[in-house]
C-alpha cells in the first residue's frame, strides 16, 4: 500500500469510529471528503471499497456491540463515502451518451462525404471524359493518341475516388449489409497488404444498422492493424452466434504481441473500438502471444439488437 493510501485508510478508520461514537453529520462530512480525496487521488472504486470494508471489519472487532449492530449503524457512513463515486459515475454515463451521439453524427457525415465523393466527383470526371472526346475529335488523327495517357490517368483518379469513398463508407453496408461490405473490405486489404483474408459468416440475419456499422468499423480497424503490424499471411474474420450473443472474431497468424505491455501503444484505434462496441453492449478481448498471432474477439448481446432495432 502506498503512503497516501495508508493515510486515507487511517483517516477512514478514525472517521468511521467517530461516526459510530455518535459524531453524526461531522463524520458523514468527513466520509464524503474522504471519498472525494480517494477519487481525486485516482484510487479505484474497488480499492476504495476494500479500504472501507477493512475499516468496518476493524470497527466490528474493536467494538463491544454485536457485528450486525455495527454494520447496520455504519451504513450511512459507507453510502456517504461512495457518494463522490456516484457523481463521477453519472459523469461517465453522460459523457458516453455524448460520445455516442458524436460518433453517430460523425458516421452520418462520413456517409455524406463518401456519397458526394462517389457521385458528384464521379459525374464531374465523366464530363471531363466527354470533353476529352470532343477535343480528340477536333485534333488531327496523329495527335489523338497523345490524349491516351491523360485518359488513363483520369481513369486512375476515378478508381482511386471510388476506392476512397467505398472505404470511407461502403455503399454495400447500407444497401446489401454487413457481409458483402466485409468481403469488399477484405478484398481491398488482401490486395494491398498481400495477405489472405477470409470472411466467414454464420449469422442468418441482418443486424440493426447501428450494430452493423460498429462491427464494420471494428473489422476495418482490426484489418488495418493486421496489415500494419502483424506481418501475417492469413487473417480470418468470423461472425457467429454463441449463447445468445453475436461474436465477431478476427484471427491472424502474425507476429503477435504482449497485450499486457501494449499499454498506450494500443492507441486510439483499440480504445475507439472498445468504446464503440460498449455503446452496443459489447466488449472486446484481445488474445495474443508473441510469435503466435493475435485473436480479437468481440461478443455482443443479441438482446440489445432487438432493443435497438425496435427503437428505429
Amino acid at each position: 500500500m502506498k503512503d497516501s493510501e495508508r493515510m486515507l485508510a487511517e483517516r477512514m478508520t478514525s472517521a468511521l469510529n467517530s461516526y459510530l461514537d455518535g459524531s453524526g453529520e461531522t463524520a458523514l462530512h468527513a466520509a464524503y471528503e474522504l471519498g472525494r480525496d480517494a477519487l481525486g487521488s485516482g484510487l479505484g472504486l474497488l480499492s476504495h471499497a476494500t479500504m472501507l470494508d477493512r475499516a468496518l471489519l476493524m470497527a466490528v472487532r474493536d467494538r463491544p456491540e454485536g457485528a450486525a449492530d455495527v454494520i447496520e449503524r455504519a451504513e450511512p457512513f459507507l453510502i456517504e463515502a461512495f457518494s463522490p463515486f456516484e457523481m463521477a459515475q453519472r459523469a461517465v454515463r453522460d459523457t458516453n451518451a455524448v460520445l455516442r451521439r458524436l460518433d453517430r453524427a460523425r458516421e452520418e457525415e462520413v456517409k455524406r462525404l463518401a456519397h458526394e465523393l462517389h457521385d458528384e466527383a464521379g459525374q464531374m470526371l465523366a464530363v471531363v471524359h466527354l470533353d476529352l472526346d470532343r477535343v480528340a475529335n477536333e485534333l488531327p488523327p496523329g495527335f489523338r493518341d497523345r490524349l491516351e495517357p491523360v485518359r488513363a490517368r483520369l481513369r486512375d483518379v476515378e478508381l482511386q475516388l471510388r476506392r476512397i469513398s467505398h472505404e470511407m463508407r461502403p455503399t454495400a453496408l447500407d444497401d446489401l449489409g454487413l457481409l458483402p461490405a466485409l468481403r469488399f473490405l477484405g478484398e481491398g486489404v488482401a490486395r494491398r497488404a498481400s495477405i489472405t483474408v477470409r470472411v466467414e459468416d454464420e449469422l442468418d440475419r441482418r443486424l440493426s444498422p447501428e450494430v452493423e456499422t460498429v462491427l464494420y468499423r471494428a473489422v476495418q480497424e482490426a484489418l488495418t492493424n493486421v496489415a500494419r503490424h502483424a506481418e501475417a499471411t492469413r487473417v480470418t474474420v468470423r461472425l457467429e452466434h454463441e449463447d445468445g450473443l453475436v461474436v465477431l472474431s478476427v484471427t491472424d497468424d502474425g507476429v503477435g504481441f504482449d497485450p499486457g505491455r501494449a499499454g498506450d501503444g494500443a492507441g486510439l484505434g483499440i480504445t475507439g473500438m472498445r468504446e464503440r462496441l460498449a455503446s452496443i453492449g459489447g466488449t472486446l478481448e484481445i488474445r495474443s502471444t508473441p510469435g503466435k498471432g493475435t485473436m480479437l474477439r468481440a461478443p455482443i448481446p443479441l438482446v440489445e439488437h432487438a432493443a435497438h432495432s425496435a427503437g428505429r
Partner: protein
Amino acid sequence: MHMTRLRGAQTVIVGIEESRVHIDSDGAIVEARQRGRSLALGLGFSAGSATLIATSISELARNILLYAGEGEIALQPLRTGGRYGLAVFASDHGPGIADLERALEDGYSTSGRLGLGLPGVRRLMDEFEVRTNGVGGTVVRAAMWNHS
C-alpha cells in the same frame, strides 16, 4: 436554529429565512448538510436521496469557500400538488463566474474533471440554475423532487 416540525401528513414547511446557514468554515458546511439531510428525510426523501442532497450541499458550499471565502446556503422545502421537493440555494458575493458555460463543463476545473463540482451537482439534482454576472456574486439554485 429553528426546528422543522414534520409530523406525518401534517407538514409544516419552514420559511426560507429559517434555513439559512452562513458558510465560512468546514463546520458550517457540516451544519448545512445536517439541516439539508433532516429536511430531506422529513419531506419523505429516501436515505439515498438525502445523501445526494447532502453531497450537493457539500459541493456548493465548497465552491463558496474556495472562490468567495464566505457565503450562504439556504434550504427551501417545495410543494407542488402532492409532491415535495427541496431547493438548495448557494449564494456568495465573490468574484462571480466569468465564463459560466465553461464552468458547467466537466473539464473546466479539477473537480469538474472528476465529475464533481457544479457539473456534478447539476447531474445529481432535478433542477439546476446559476445566476452570475462575472462582476460579483453567484447564486446557484439546485432542487430535487421526491420521486418515491
